[in-house]
Structure formats: C-alpha cells, structure tokens
C-alpha cells in the first residue's frame, strides 16, 4: 500500500517561526534579550550608514504577568537614523528576509531578519500588532500598525497615519508587545548595552527598564568610523548557488565580461588567466552555462591562485582612536593597549582584527581575564569558552612574557569585522578557529601585550626608583642628625644635595 505524501511549500516567515531557536528566540529570557538586541542593532546600522551619530532610546514596560517573572512587555526603540521610506515600512517590518543585508557589506545584523523576527515573536506570544513610526526627514512622519501573515510572509496593515514633520525629524520608532522574562535576562541586557557602548563610543544609548531605572551610555567622541562600501563577491568566497543566481540575472554576454563585472578585484588580465585555467572559453555565454560547468567553475575559482586578495574597503573597523574612547569610557582602566591589524582574508572574505588590552583601574575584579568579544561591533555574550579568542587568550599566550602578574584586573577585547564573520554555529554567538583569523587575533594580542609589558616595566622601574628614593630620604637625614649630635656640631646638614644624586648611583647587584 502506498501513501501519498503531501509536499507543501512554507514561507520564510513560517520557516523561522518553526525554527525560532536559530534566531535566538528559544525561551522567554533569550527572547527578550534577542528582541532588544536586534532592534538596537538595526537602529545603530540605520544611523551609521549615513554617518549620523546614533541617539537611541530603549524602553521596556511591563504590561502584566508575574512580577519579576514571565510577563508581557512593551518594547519601544527609537533612533535618529535615516528612517524608512513610507512605502517600504510594511515590507521592512512585516516580511521576513526583506532588507538590504544580502549584499556584501559589513553590517551588524546577522540574519537580515532581526527586527522582523522580533516582531514575529511578539505577535505569536501576545497576538498584538506592532507599530512602526518613521520619517526620512521629509515633511511627513508615517505611522503604520501591522501584523505579519505568517503563512504568506506578508505584512497586514491594520492602520496607517500621517503626521506633519515640523521639526524635520528623521529616524524610526518600533513598538510592540512580547512575552519575556526581563528580570532573568537583565544581567545580559545590561552587559550587552555596556559592551555595545564600548564598540560604539560615538552613540548615545538610553535604556529605561521595567522598574523605571535609567541606564545611560553617553557618547564619548564625535568621530564615527568610515561607513563600509558595498562590494562584489570575491571568487574565493562564492558557491554554486551564487553563480547560478548571477548567471540568471547577468546582462553580460561573455564569460570574460561576466568575470570582470560580477567579481571583486577581477580585471581583464586576471579574468583571462583564470578562464584559461578553468578551461572555459572567454566568449562563452554565461546564460548558457550548464549545471556541471558551474560546479567546475566554482571548483576552479577555489583552486586558482592568482586572484588578487580581497580589499578591505567594504570593512569598517573601529580604529585605534574609537576603540580607546570606548574602552576608556566604559571600563576606565589604568592603561589601554591597542593593536589594529592590517586587513586579511579567509576563503575570499576580507576581515580585520582589532585587539585591545585594558589593565587595572576600574575594571571589574575577577579571578580571570575578562574577555570582551565583538563581531562587526556586536558584543558576543554567550559561549565564551568556545570562541577562538578564548582559546588564544587562555592557551596560546603566555601572559608572564608580558610581565602581567594578575594582581590587578585585566580585560582583553577582540573585534573581528568582516563581510562574513566565521561563526561556528547558526546561533552566531562565537567565532570559529579559522587559522587565518586565529593568527591575526594572536598577533594582535601579542602586540598589545608587548605595549602592556613595556608600560608595566616602565611603571615598575618608576616605582622602584621611587622606593629607592624613599629609602634614601628616610635614612640620610637620620644619619645627618645622629652624626651631628655625636660630632657636637651646631648645624644640621642638608641632605638635599645627596638625595639629588641618588638617581645617578649605579644600582648595586
């Protein structure tokens, strides 16, 4: 007996609804943290792309449920970013996989569905609509109340309003309800905001929590990192799927043109050489490539060794100045060492590693080195011990070489920025130990370690000199006094001259 199987296509919204663990909405604690985080990151991106210093306001209000437990919260996130054009608002917030993040550029958002996923989660836990208010700085402010039709992956607009924009405001306000457990999520949320403030010292972030407590992370600099440029994919980093899409949309007629037009750092000469290497005629029409030819082409791309390495103009590292400002304002250490690595690449994806070591001062005291991990300016808070940085910090660096004695607290910061962060798992909480990335982290921390070592030995020698002078200052006047008394002299000797000579004394071994 045979049974007829039913195949049904599911929408992306449905898919993510069924697999919400992947996006970090696995339980009420993680969900409220993830929702807040996705919205804050969207807001930061919306500001940074247009070089607007971010000013972000987040408010969580409890709407019922168990006090200090599982409850319904209203979340409201306001930013002063570029705003969303009125016609895009419903799709941008009510349709999964809509957005600008599928091109190659360093952005925070990890799935291209962060904000929408949060709204989706709110809808399925509270059955309440979301309200989006936005203006791009035109004469009107648009307000849209919507819900998501999960099965069709379409926004359902419930209400639309228009207001005049007297003050020329631009930005976006997202407000919706969701079920969560703020009080258990609170430590992570506060830590997330603090670390975000480290990586975005040019942002003002204000957070009012359900108890009405105000957390302010104020801007420490008016400088902003240079916005990343969009870039084409590098041949090393493409897969069969990408090529297949490209050959269907390309307007080029020859493989030579195809290579030059759609790939990063491929010029005429390189393209010719590569096509020879791949055994593909230069005048072959890309539209007519067969499936097995595409596979062969991708294979050849991986094996051809004469492509130029990807350039890093699509990356937006923080740079030494901003990193220092962020670390200074949130950790207030005694000393900061920073090393910004030169761009590097793994599998055709450019990346830059930035490392910092903060030492002493107001850094929180723990038994261990505090590790702050960032990927494209997003703090990574979970699964620290699985991260490549943890491995480097704890197993590959001998801190004694840098005179670190651990009598004072120390924090290590690692920022990896890339068009594609090599996360180890779909959860995107920790970075895999790709040898190229690992080597850059190691070298960066070694360099920062050397700076710290130099600082520590200078400080030690200054302290040593001071201790020495203290000893001489203590005893020489006594000798002067006792001998004056013994010799029966009237005049107390002035030992200042001798004390000035202390620094010139060669130290006895």
């Amino acid at each position, binding site marked *: 007996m045979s049974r007829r199987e039913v195949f049904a296509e599911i929408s992306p919204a449905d898919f993510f609804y069924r697999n919400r663990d992947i996006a970090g909405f696995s339980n009420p604690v993680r969900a409220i943290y993830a929702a807040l985080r996705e919205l804050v990151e969207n807001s930061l991106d919306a500001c940074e792309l247009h070089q607007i210093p971010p000013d972000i306001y987040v408010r969580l209000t409890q709407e019922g449920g168990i006090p200090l437990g599982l409850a319904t919260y209203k979340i409201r996130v306001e930013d002063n970013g570029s705003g969303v054009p009125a016609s895009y608002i419903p799709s941008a917030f009510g349709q999964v996989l809509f957005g600008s993040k599928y091109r190659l550029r360093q952005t925070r958002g990890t799935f291209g569905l962060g904000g929408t996923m949060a709204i989706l989660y709110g809808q399925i836990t509270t059955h309440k609509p979301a309200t989006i208010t936005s203006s791009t700085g035109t004469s009107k402010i648009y307000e849209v109340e919507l819900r998501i039709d999960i099965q069709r992956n379409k926004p359902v607009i419930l209400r639309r309003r228009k207001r005049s924009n007297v003050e020329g405001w631009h930005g976006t306000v997202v407000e919706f309800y969701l079920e969560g457990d703020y009080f258990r999520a609170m430590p992570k949320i506060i830590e997330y905001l603090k670390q975000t403030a480290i990586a975005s010292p040019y942002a003002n972030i204000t957070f009012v929590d359900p108890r009405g407590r105000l957390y302010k992370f104020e801007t420490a600099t008016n400088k902003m990192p240079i916005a990343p440029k969009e870039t084409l994919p590098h041949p090393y980093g493409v897969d069969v799927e990408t090529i297949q899409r490209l050959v269907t949309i390309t307007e080029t007629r020859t493989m030579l043109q195809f290579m030059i037009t759609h790939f990063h750092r491929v010029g005429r000469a390189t393209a010719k050489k590569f096509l020879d290497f791949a055994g593909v005629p230069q005048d072959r029409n890309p539209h007519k490539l067969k499936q097995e030819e595409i596979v062969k082409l991708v294979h050849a791309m991986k094996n051809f060794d004469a492509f130029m390495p990807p350039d890093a103009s699509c990356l937006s590292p923080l740079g030494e100045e901003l990193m220092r400002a962020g670390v200074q304002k949130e950790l207030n250490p005694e000393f900061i060492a920073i090393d910004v690595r030169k761009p590097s690449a793994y599998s055709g994806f450019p990346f830059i590693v930035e490392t910092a070591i903060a030492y002493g001062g107001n850094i929180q005291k723990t038994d261990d080195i505090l590790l702050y991990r960032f990927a494209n300016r997003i703090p990574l808070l979970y699964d620290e011990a699985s991260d490549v940085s943890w491995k480097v910090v704890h197993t590959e660096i001998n801190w004694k070489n840098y005179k670190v004695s651990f009598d004072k607290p120390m924090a290590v910061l690692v920022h990896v920025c890339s068009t594609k962060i090599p996360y180890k798992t779909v959860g995107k909480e920790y970075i895999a130990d790709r040898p190229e990335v690992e080597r850059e982290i190691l070298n960066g921390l070694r360099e920062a370690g050397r700076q710290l070592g130099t600082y520590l030995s200078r400080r030690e020698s200054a302290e040593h000199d001071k201790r*020495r002078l203290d000893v001489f200052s203590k*005893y020489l006047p*006594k*000798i002067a006094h*006792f*001998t004056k*008394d*013994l010799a*029966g002299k009237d005049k107390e000797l002035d030992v200042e001259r001798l004390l000035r000579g202390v620094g010139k004394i060669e130290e006895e071994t």
Partner: protein
Amino acid sequence: MIKDLQEFGADLYEQMERGEFPWVRMPSRSINNIYYDPGTRQYVLGDRSVRRSARNIRHIRPLTQLTWIADFAYHLTKQKKTSTLRDVFYNAQAYDMSFTDQPESDDIITDLETILGYAREDFSIFPEERSAIFGNLTISYTVPGYEGKKLNLTSHPDGVMIGPALTSAELLDTDAEMVIAIEKGAMFTRFIEEKAHKKFKALLIHTAGQAPRATRQFLRRINSELGLPVYIFTDGDPWGMHIAMVIISGSANAAHLRELTTPDAKWSGVWASDIVNYKLPSDKLNDMDIRRLYELQRDPRYEGKLWKQEIDTFFKVKKKAEQEAFSRYGLSYIVDKYLPAKLEEMKSY
C-alpha cells in the same frame, strides 16, 4: 672612649659636608676572616675589611642604625648610665628605624665594637643574662653612688650577681686558691650548700650556660689579677665542652675583642671518660650532638690532647651525662669524692 665615639660621628659628618655619601670601613667578621691565633690563644680577625656606604641601598639602613647606636652609647656613657641589649632593641623603635629582631640590633652593636675596638660593656650596654659568684672575695665598688663601698662575696647565700657594678669593681682581698666555674644553677647551689668554697678554698661562679662576656671578663681578671687557677665544670656533652672552650679561648663572635679569654682555665668535667669511669646515668647522643662533635673535631681550638681524647671517647661511647648524674651516689658525692679526685687528676694536664 667618648672621644672615639665623637670622632666616629665627626668623620661621617664631614664626609656628608663634602657632599659624599657617608661610609665606614670595618674589619670583616665573616667566617673566612676569623683565624685562631696560637700566640694570644684565641680567635682573632684577619686583614679583610668591609666598607659600609650610604650609597648602597642595602647598607643605608644598617649604617643609620650604627650611627644611632653610637649616639645612644655616647649619651649613655656621658650620663654614666647602663642599658641592656634588649633595651637598645626597643629604644630604636622611637626613631622609626626599628630593628627587625634583637639579633639584628645585637649585630649592629657588634659592628660598633668592631669599628671602635671596644666591648659593648665599655659603652655601658650589657646583655640580659646574668651569672653569679659566691666565695670569700672582698671587692670595692667604683660605680656612681657606691664608690668605695666594700662587699664580701659570701654575704649573700644565693651568690652575688655578676653585673656592670661588679665587673668594674676593684678586687681587694681573698683567701681563695682557685675558681670553680659551674654551668648549672642547681649544681652551683649544691656547691654552696656543701661548702665547696671552704673545702677547696674556692670562688664559685655560676656561668648560667654559655658564660656572658662580663663573666668571662671577670674570670680573666680574677685569673690574672689574683693569680687563681680556673676550673670549669660543665655537663658531659659537646655543648658543655664548648662552654668551657669559650671561657678558655673565646668565641668566634668576639674575635674582634681582647681580654675576654682565660687561656689557662681548665675544663675539669664532666668528661666523656667520667661517664665510663664513674658509671654515670646517661643518655644517648642525638643527631645534633653528633653533628656538633664533628664541628668541634674540625675546630682549631680543640687541638689539645685532652680535647682530642674526650671527643674520641664521646664518639666511642655515644653517650652524654649531666652534672646532676653524680647524685646517684648521694648529694655530697660530687664535692666530697669526685672533685678532689678530679682536681688531683687535672695536675697531669
């Protein structure tokens, strides 16, 4: 001596006045600069010297302490007062240059002795431990307030304490023919009770273990000024043997000082051979005793025939006995039988 202290201070003062870091030079008291001098029959310091300079951060504190002690001794002597080693240790704390412990302050006092060539008793600084003397000797005090006052040393049945007043007294008159120095208090009391001072016409001295310098100096004076032979009676073990030796030939610690030794004094027991000959109750020598014996065997002061013979016997019998062991033969045995026999025997050494 007051002048020497003043000059010591003036030297350092002038060095500083010239813009130099103050310094002193003194004979080295390290082990490899101590030699046994057969001429004076005591340990003496060799030619090596050490320089202690305020330029050196590790020297500046001890140098400060040294100048302070010199100043302290100066005022003490000027005011004709006395002090003790313990006193000095505590007194320094008022000047914010405390000594870590008393051995440290004792050591700095020894430095001052070495530099100036005087014993600390000359600076009126005395050790805490006191020993005692009993016997028919009349002395006349010289200390302030007691000048000319006389005392017969049989006047107190517990003996008279050997302190600064006694060591500086004049020795006037005695009918004694010998001195018996005794290690232990109980035995000293026994000797007085058994009237050993009369039976042997002896001055009895209690050393209270290792004899303090004042006692050694006083023994020397009696020996040289009154011409009385000195017999030393200790426990029968390596430590007792060495108590006798320090009285006779001096200690390494006092190699920078003279006139503390009584080279003609005799160790008259308890010998290792006495343990055998008198069948004395005894204990086994422990590891520390054995180690000490090996050290004594290498010590140049133990060259003499008696010393060598007794060390060998200790090694052979591996036993030790206390002075009190003679009590097994009755309380008076030691004074009535043993001592006369021993003093007779001593004539052959």
